[in-house]
């Protein structure tokens, strides 16, 4: 292999292995005095142009950097477990049982105004989505559950959600005397405004 090719290999290896951008003087210490370092760097930079990794000048030295246009793909997604607020769970339930339903109707059914982020959170979870608008004044958005909602809760269809009578029979509509639900569950949500009739 020619001397110049060997020099190119060495410069490539040095630039790859060092932790910081490396200047021409520092490179010179590893090469023959006669080496044309500027020329070697130019040649190397050209051979990496348009590739996944580029040779760039940074902080007065030279270093390899991944190509900027690939930044979006050089990411790893990491699942982070989150808990839904009480208000979000209840809103999801109302949408599931009353869909398609407007925001105002959800508020009417729950008796409290919806916090700002509640529906956003449910959309982020992939469980609800807007679908069409109700005819009438203001043409409000209608909310429905998604197929992801059915998958998450292991339901084949919305018909599998227990009806009111079944809920009552299962004890899910019974009064539990010592808990005031509106205070117990919702303190982590933003304050909700009671609606006056």
């Amino acid at each position, binding site marked *: 292999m020619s001397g110049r090719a060997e020099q190119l290999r060495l410069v490539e290896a040095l630039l790859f292995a060092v932790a910081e951008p490396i200047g021409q003087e520092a490179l010179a210490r590893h090469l023959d005095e006669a080496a044309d370092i500027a020329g070697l760097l130019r040649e190397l930079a050209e051979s990496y142009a348009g590739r996944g990794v580029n040779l760039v000048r940074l902080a007065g030295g030279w270093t390899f950097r991944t190509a900027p246009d690939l930044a979006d793909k050089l990411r790893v997604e990491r699942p982070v477990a989150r808990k839904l607020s009480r208000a979000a769970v209840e809103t*999801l339930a109302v949408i599931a049982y009353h869909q398609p339903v407007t925001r105002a109707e959800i508020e009417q059914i729950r008796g409290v105004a919806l916090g700002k982020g509640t529906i956003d959170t449910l959309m982020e979870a992939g469980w609800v989505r807007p679908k069409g608008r109700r005819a009438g004044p203001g043409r409000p958005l209608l909310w429905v559950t998604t197929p992801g909602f059915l998958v998450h809760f292991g339901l084949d269809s919305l018909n599998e959600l227990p009806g009111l009578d079944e809920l009552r029979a299962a004890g*899910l509509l019974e009064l539990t005397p010592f808990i005031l*639900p509106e205070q117990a569950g919702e303190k982590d949500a933003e304050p909700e405004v009671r609606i006056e009739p």
Partner: protein
Amino acid sequence: MTEATPHPPAPRVPPSRSEQLVLELDGYEGPIDLLLTLAREQKVDLGKISILALADQYLAFIARQRSLSLEIAADYLVMAAWLAYLKSRLLLPQPPQDEEPSGIELAAQLEHRLRLLEAMQIAGGRLMARPRTGQDVFLRGAPEGLAVVPVPVYELALYELLRAYGDGRRRTEAAVLTIEPAEFYSMDDALSRLARFIGRVPNWRELASFLPRELRGELFRRSALAATFAATLELARRGRVELRQDRSFGPIYLRSFAPAAAQGLGAAA
């Protein structure tokens, strides 16, 4: 490549031939290692060495050390004793009904141990001779890393969903029962309130002064005014109070009917 062996160090002696020997012994990784070194001095394949000659060499080596009054680690002496035993098994005919392994079996075992140690010594050397990462070859010195994008995952069981729906329904139903009746002041409320004042109001007083003091909003105030007015009409009809209004939309005044009649009525009630 030396390390402190777990054996007691040999005593220091003045520079001489004996020190050379001490250092030699100190340089071995135990009796097997010493045996292996001696075997290598026979310069033949381990399979062809003479175990008998090897035992002699080892015993001579140890004897030489002891003749120099050097302390020899116990494990080297144990090995010497075992080799002396092996030698006797190899040289003397085996007695009949002897359960112990023959000299040839023992020699084969020793040979296996020597080969095993030699193999590991060679393997270690070959490992160390490889291009070593961080020393001869280098990984990326300045890895940029991959950006971590958190993806929220929400956990919710069907039970929690249904429970929340049930709780929500219950809350709104309960509100109708407990809050709404309290929003209005009924005529019965007004009658029972006025009954406390009848007989104790000899002079004219404004109707408004009999209204409840609680401030519960406009709706409640107006229902209280209406209920109290209706109650005074009822009381006037029964002859318990007198009412007076001086002009249209003017204030309404009220007093107990008459002291004597009131007492009589009070006793009758």
